[in-house]
């Protein structure tokens, strides 16, 4: 069964550093998403991406965040200057159409 692949599975970074979280969506999918889950809390929407541009973003997705699909297969989330409160599990998801996403297994980001 096709999978959404996320790397790395765990990333530790110092506060103020830039991090890039990587995702390889399922190959024929057209819609891409990032969500995050702070430990023990609910899954929260960050951003959706379609047709090479952001289609929607949440209040969490401020100027410190950016997304890119640099080469037609990867989909990245960049956090420019990490804060302690950015520590969370970040999930990438993709879908053929709106809804019915497949999520990846996540990247656990720990900011120290």
């Amino acid at each position, binding site marked *: 069964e096709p999978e959404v692949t996320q790397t790395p599975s765990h990333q530790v970074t110092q506060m103020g550093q830039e991090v890039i979280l990587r995702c390889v969506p399922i190959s024929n999918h057209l819609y891409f998403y990032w969500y995050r889950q702070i430990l023990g809390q*609910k899954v929260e929407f960050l951003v959706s991406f379609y047709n090479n541009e952001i289609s929607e973003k949440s209040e969490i997705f401020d100027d410190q965040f950016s997304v890119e699909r640099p080469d037609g297969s990867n989909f990245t989330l960049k956090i420019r200057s990490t804060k302690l409160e950015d520590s969370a599990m970040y999930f990438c998801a993709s879908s053929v159409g709106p809804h019915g996403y497949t999520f990846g297994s996540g990247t656990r980001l720990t900011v120290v």
Partner: protein
Amino acid sequence: QQQVKQSPQSLIVQKGGISIINCAYENTAFDYFPWYQQFPGKGPALLIAIRPDVSEKKEGRFTISFNKSAKQFSLHIMDSQPGDSATYFCAASPWNTDKLIFGTGTRLQVFP
């Protein structure tokens, strides 16, 4: 108004029993209601979904019941098995977007 309230927070069921998880919403713009299953260390996986023009949807042992007038929907797991032990999230999506708003999750434990 964008919230989805989920209960209970945790649920313990004996093998063979029925597990019932409830969700409620306020926003009448929601028109897609999926349930996700999440195992430790994995991303959420789509289990079953319903739209408000249907009051019930069944897939195998999993059934969604939907009450549009009460703005409530629930997941029933029949003949619960230890392998069903996971965290379950309800979610909702407004008609004009593909982002998901998740409930807070229910940790289900099924004992033999």
